[in-house]
């Protein structure tokens, strides 16, 4: 790819400066690596924490905001925190509600429930079920007596922290709160800002499981995805879906097989699948209780052991860096 660009540039001297500037930009540009898995419990967070201790000059971002665990290993010191208001929910003023029932009819989310009877009358008054309310505002817009208002909701908290290997951005979603996707976007936005300011080389993102809203919010616009998978029938099935998601959003994906020796024949199948879809398998990590033991000691794998397990993770990290250099997207 570089060669092609340079050939074109050589033919047109006006473009040479342009290309040179671009390359400078690329060198400066922080690379965003997102680690996801589709299936939960494949070892994402332990691997991300290990990368933190291997990378020089990285900003860590925990985007698994409803089950955030990265802080348990990296033990960040919170420097700044801010409330996160992600959306609104409807509120019915019981003094104003006449019980006409128009809101019940219009709500698509079955989020309006009866709340006793109107004084001295037979008709019901209503209240909002906050769990069901999606904050669409339709009820408030159409209420004939303007008894419904949309109230901003504090959905969680954002933390800007410092841990032993550098800056870390993380968050905590409130219990049974919504707007995960927006909170994930906020975490990434802050991580990018810090990375730019501090001239970091990498942003390493610990992503959530699944393929839905928070995962999409975690990967869009990233430079590379590392899928941590495991050789189980579920792991393979989930890998295929998450790889399809990466392709859908046009983000280069790479794979790392954790616990590969639990089922060598499925590990083989994963490699075949990746080969067929031109996805690089960056390494295999064996099944080892050291993952759990390191976690209990609040240590990353390379901190906990200098044995083969640390070597396997180091080689995945090394290849991942190499991949970032080789990827065509890196020079676009």
């Amino acid at each position, binding site marked *: 790819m570089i060669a092609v660009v340079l050939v074109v540039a050589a033919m047109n001297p006006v473009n040479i400066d342009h290309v040179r500037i671009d390359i400078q930009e690329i060198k400066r540009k922080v690379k965003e690596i997102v680690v996801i*898995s*589709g*299936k*939960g*419990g*494949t070892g994402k*967070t332990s691997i991300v924490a290990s990368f933190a201790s291997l990378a020089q000059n990285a900003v860590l971002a925990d985007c698994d905001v*409803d*089950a*955030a*665990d990265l802080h*348990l290993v990296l033990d960040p010191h919170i420097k700044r925190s801010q409330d996160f208001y992600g*959306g*609104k929910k409807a509120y019915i003023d019981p003094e104003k509600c006449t019980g006409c029932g128009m809101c019940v009819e*219009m709500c*698509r*989310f079955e989020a309006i429930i009866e709340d006793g009877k109107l004084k001295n009358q037979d008709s019901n008054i209503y209240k909002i079920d906050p*769990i069901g309310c*999606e*904050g*669409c*505002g*339709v009820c408030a*817009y*159409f209420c004939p007596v303007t008894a419904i208002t*949309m109230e901003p909701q504090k959905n969680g908290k954002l933390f800007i922290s410092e841990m032993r290997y550098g800056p870390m951005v993380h968050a905590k*979603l409130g*219990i*049974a*709160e*919504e707007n*995960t996707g927006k909170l994930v976007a906020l975490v990434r936005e802050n991580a990018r800002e810090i990375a730019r300011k501090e001239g970091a080389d990498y942003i390493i993102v610990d992503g959530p*499981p*699944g*393929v*839905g*809203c928070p995962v*999409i919010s975690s990967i869009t616009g990233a430079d590379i995805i590392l899928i941590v998978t*495991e*050789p*189980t*029938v*579920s792991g393979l*099935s*989930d890998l295929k*879906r998450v790889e*399809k*998601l990466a392709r*859908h*959003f046009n983000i280069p994906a790479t794979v790392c097989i954790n*616990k590969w020796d*639990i*089922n060598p024949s*499925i590990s083989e199948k994963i490699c075949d699948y990746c080969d067929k879809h031109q996805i690089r398998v960056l390494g295999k990590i064996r*099944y080892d*209780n050291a993952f*759990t033991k390191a*976690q*209990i000691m*609040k240590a990353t794998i390379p901190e906990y052991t200098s044995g083969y397990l640390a070597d396997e993770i180091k080689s995945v990290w090394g290849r991942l860096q190499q991949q970032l250099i080789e990827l065509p997207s890196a020079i676009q």
Partner: protein
Amino acid sequence: MKIAVASGKGGTGKTTVAVNLACLMAESSDHICYVDCDVEEPNGHLFLKPSITRQWTVSIPFPSVDDRLCDGCGKCKEICQQNAITVINGKVLVFPELCNGCGGCSLVCPQEAIREIPKEIGKAMAGHAGELGFISGRLNVGEPMAVPVIRDVKKAITDNVEAIIDAPPGTTCPMIEAVRQVDYVLLVTEPTPFGLNDLKIAVDTMSKLDLPHAVIINRAGSGDESVKDFCLDRNIPVVTEIPDDRRVAELYSQGKIIYKSLPRFKEYFEDILRAINDKRRERG
């Protein structure tokens, strides 16, 4: 009765518990149904290998604007809380991925220029694996919203069955939709710091939703005692502790039902069954 198998942390063994439990229950009743609500990454079928007898698409309504009627007034953009509609140079643009199908835009449009058309976001299917009923959903890859698919899957549960609902990981909207209005939630965890941290969030979520719940400790012995201490401290029943065993991990990797290959493990699922029966009696 509807029983949900959930967890905060992913990969703790929800599906293992749900499929083994469903199979065990189906040995003595023909009114058991396994329901896979982990529609982002559904895996129950890999273990139960059901025959599917019915499949249907799950769609949500999203707006389609008739340019001939639209005068670009922007009322639709104003009401849309999802930012799924924008108006540029008097022309309405819709971003279907952001739309949650609330219908506000079509209701508010003074020109009646907005019609709602169904947009497929996933699939649902039903069938059986031997005596065991089977329902499952699958979100189309690239679609962000799992909740409508879960809602559709749960609607397919008939009144005459006992449902074992395999919930998605986490504690946000998809998990909440899966456990909404169930009778009993079994939270599967593992005895590790990550397991404990996410269990605490899951327990708080259950309390907020006012749902009766109990804990199952999977891979017992692999970590520390902190999960047990937490349950003791918070007075949350621990239904069973499934010991850590590499053979279980290997059987799981092959898509096998654990207790059928390792009969010694049957007792742990019998413990769970007993807890469910106790709960049923308690409810009367």
